[in-house]
């Protein structure tokens, strides 16, 4: 367990909060796509930690960032974290996304709060000069975030919404096809929607592209000992907290 100090915790609209925490140890160890388990409050209610993707990190500054959606008791309590508050963090845990050696172009597909999982990867890829095509999906513009954090000369951000139909499978497929035609995609990373996961899998399969998906399951221990957070894969039930959250698309959809 590590202790972190809240630096900022503010609403960013769409029912999301953005929180910045100083925790040099986690910032030092964190890899793209890994998760951190927040103990929302001491005591027994809520009893368990809450898992969150690390949205962004800054190894030099020793900070990590989260974007979280208000869902229930735990996230409701997190809303009241104030700058200066000390919070109890466990992690980072789980498998990270890995950029393939020599990758030139990647696609990021995120939906809703799942977007939080793929943004730091996009930033890392851009830092390495890799071309990034990001497709960020949500019900409406307020439900999509992270576009700004991805800004870079080699990154294109496509925001797609349910309200205008741009988040349809057909349209997302169109963006993927165009990206592929403009020069081969080396890897696809997806988080936040089963439908997008399936679509990414079908597309990756068709074009022989390496693809990864980050999954969610309710957790207890967060470190791989209790086996409550399993998802069904081609290798049997695997834990999302330790064997995941990032899995090869083929293990989940194959």
């Amino acid at each position, binding site marked *: *367990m590590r202790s972190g100090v809240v630096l900022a915790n503010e609403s960013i609209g769409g029912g999301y909060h953005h929180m910045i925490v100083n925790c040099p140890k986690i910032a030092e160890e964190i890899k793209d796509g890994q998760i951190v388990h927040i*103990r929302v409050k001491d005591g*027994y*209610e*809520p*009893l*368990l*930690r809450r898992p969150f993707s690390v949205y962004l990190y800054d190894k030099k500054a020793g900070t990590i960032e989260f974007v979280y959606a208000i869902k229930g008791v735990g996230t409701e309590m997190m809303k009241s974290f104030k700058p200066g508050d000390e919070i109890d963090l*466990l992690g980072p845990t789980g498998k990270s996304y890995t950029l393939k050696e020599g990758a030139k172009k990647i696609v990021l597909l995120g939906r809703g709060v799942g977007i939080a999982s793929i943004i730091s990867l996009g930033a890392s890829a851009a830092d390495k000069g890799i071309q990034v095509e990001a497709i960020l999906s949500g019900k409406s513009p307020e439900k999509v975030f992270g576009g700004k954090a991805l800004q870079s000369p080699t990154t294109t951000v496509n925001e797609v919404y349910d309200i205008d139909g741009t988040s349809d499978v057909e349209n997302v497929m169109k963006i993927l096809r165009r990206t592929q035609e403009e020069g081969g995609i080396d890897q696809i990373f997806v988080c936040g929607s089963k439908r997008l996961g399936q679509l990414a899998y079908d597309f990756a399969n068709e074009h022989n592209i390496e693809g990864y998906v980050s999954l969610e*399951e*309710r*957790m*207890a*221990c*967060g*470190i*791989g*000992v*209790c*086996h*409550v*957070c*399993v*998802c*069904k894969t081609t290798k*049997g*039930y695997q834990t999302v907290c*330790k064997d995941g959250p990032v899995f090869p698309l083929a293990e989940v959809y194959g």
Partner: protein
Amino acid sequence: MMERISLKVNIGGVELKNPVMPASGTFGVESADYLDCRKLGAILPKSFTLNPQQGNPPPRVVETSCGMLNAVGIQNKGLEYFINVTLPFFETFDTPVIASVSAYSEEDFKTIIRELNKTKTALIELNISCPNLKEGGKAFGTSAEETYKIVKAAKSVSEIPLITKLSPNVTDITEIALAAESAGSDAVSLINTFLGMAIDINTMRPKLGNITGGLSGPAIKPLALRMVWQVAQKVKIPVIGIGGIASGADAIEFLLAGATAVQIGTSSFAEPNIMERIISEIEDYMREKNISDIHEIIGGLKIG
């Protein structure tokens, strides 16, 4: 200055440096990254079965008021993996290792125990009380007669002292404890989880993939404590108290009620090194009360 305090206890002839150990299913090799296994009274990894098994469909967990329901169904990699990987890993810590064994038949229990006889396993805990196994749901541990038969069979082949883990899902837990004792069990541990359920009112479906699951955590502590107290009065063998323990004070309550040792389960999830804290809180309590030997606490409940 007070003389050095002793937290040493003995279970079935095995000396433990203190009475604090993990509860099965809540501790594994990964836990060693978060706490010092050398400090524990014993190490107790997840139950295993003869052959690997997949466990129940997700979702497997629901958080409840001060507790949680789980329906894992003993997902594990089987006996061979335990002997070749888990056991060697934990043997490096100079702390006795307890093997938690689960099985579907007398024969399977015997086969597993015969293999464990060849290892350095210090103690065996017979998990005859898991509420999440379809066949085990009728758990041997819910009938005194079945408990007697299984323990007797296990004892007939075991060269390792046995702990029988009891289910709270019974009318009179003392009867089951007595059956285990008369069949030759060297200790009893209690309790396993309470069978419970939760329903999602929006989907009108059970919240657990297995429909029902086992309730654990602070919510069950008073029930567990009462059962430990009842059993401790009836049996002569050591009792290991389990259920909702989340502090040194909680552990001391169980010791006072007659437990010789305690296991910590669900509380380790939020605080993976909680057992180290519990041990030091027990020491603090003993110093404060001027108690030099933990046996002065065990069964020390005063009534009347």
